[in-house]
């Protein structure tokens, strides 16, 4: 079975990926020219998230602005933590 013995599908990860995008978008605000290059995440091994599935979902969502082509950087930790740690944003000189 393609999705592993527990029959997991990336649906769950897609909900999480959407929330990650919402958190990131809230950080860059309404700056239409902002471009997110990298999203740093901490993913606990007990968080119920399959890292490969999460990256797959994020890659699909990162095709649109303000992410276009952004990279997800995952730090795997023990425990249940699931957090957005940092963003790397192109500073295009729009900051006031």
């Amino acid at each position, binding site marked *: 079975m393609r999705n592993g013995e527990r029959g997991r599908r990336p649906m769950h990860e897609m909900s999480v990926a959407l929330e990650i995008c919402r*958190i990131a978008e809230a950080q860059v605000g309404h700056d239409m020219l902002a471009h997110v290059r990298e999203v740093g995440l901490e993913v606990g091994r007990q968080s119920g998230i399959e890292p490969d599935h999460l990256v797959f979902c994020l890659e699909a969502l990162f095709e649109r602005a303000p992410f276009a082509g952004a990279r997800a950087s995952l730090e795997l930790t023990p425990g249940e933590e699931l957090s957005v740690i*940092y963003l790397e944003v192109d500073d295009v000189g729009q900051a006031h």
Partner: protein
Amino acid sequence: MSVRRIEVRERVMERNDALARDVRKRLDRHGVTALNLVSSPGSGKTLLLERTLRDLGGELRMAVVTGDVQTQNDADRIARWTDDLVQAVVTGGACHLDARQVSSALEAIDLHSIDLLFVENVGNLVCPASWDLGEDAKVVLFSVTEGEDKPLKYPKMFQQARYAVLTKIDLLPHLVFDAEKAVGFAREINPRLELVRTSSTDGTGLADWYDLLRRAVLKHSGAGRQLESIASRGASARAR
């Protein structure tokens, strides 16, 4: 053009958890006990709720929020058994209910007039474990037509649950299913789990389930007023 690093350090679940805390506060304020029913698809959540509303409706005031990926069939089935509100949430593909959906569903329910709220989650033993809905406790159902090792395969859900229901036990004579083994696995994962065995078809064990619900409501509400009103309504229901 330079690269700027923004420190975020925000838990992905934070917004959901904040909404869940709000829901929990609203429910507490009205003395409502909320149970989040989780299981695989087809374990018998809806039928157990139908029986519960039929048998306990004169004693406890209950409302139900049902979540389904598509259709509001479960809500329609349950609505036949109660005058109280049944709210259907169609998740449109999502694998779980979230606190926002429950919060909106509660807008249509007069919380002051109910004792017990059931949230029938989407049939799924993985995703609902990550989304707090503001419930008082999770009830995990698993049926004798599933594997005995369900608790071992989905430990997070069984760890989080306060109550478990082993359903469809009328089918045991026809199956190669070792109920003791299944219950043993559940207790191994969660020693504090309170477990009942039921058949919604022939009624076996439903009395245990109803006792569990009565205790959950009394324990949660705690208020003497509530105890009194439940007792008197129970008496009048029996007198009918």
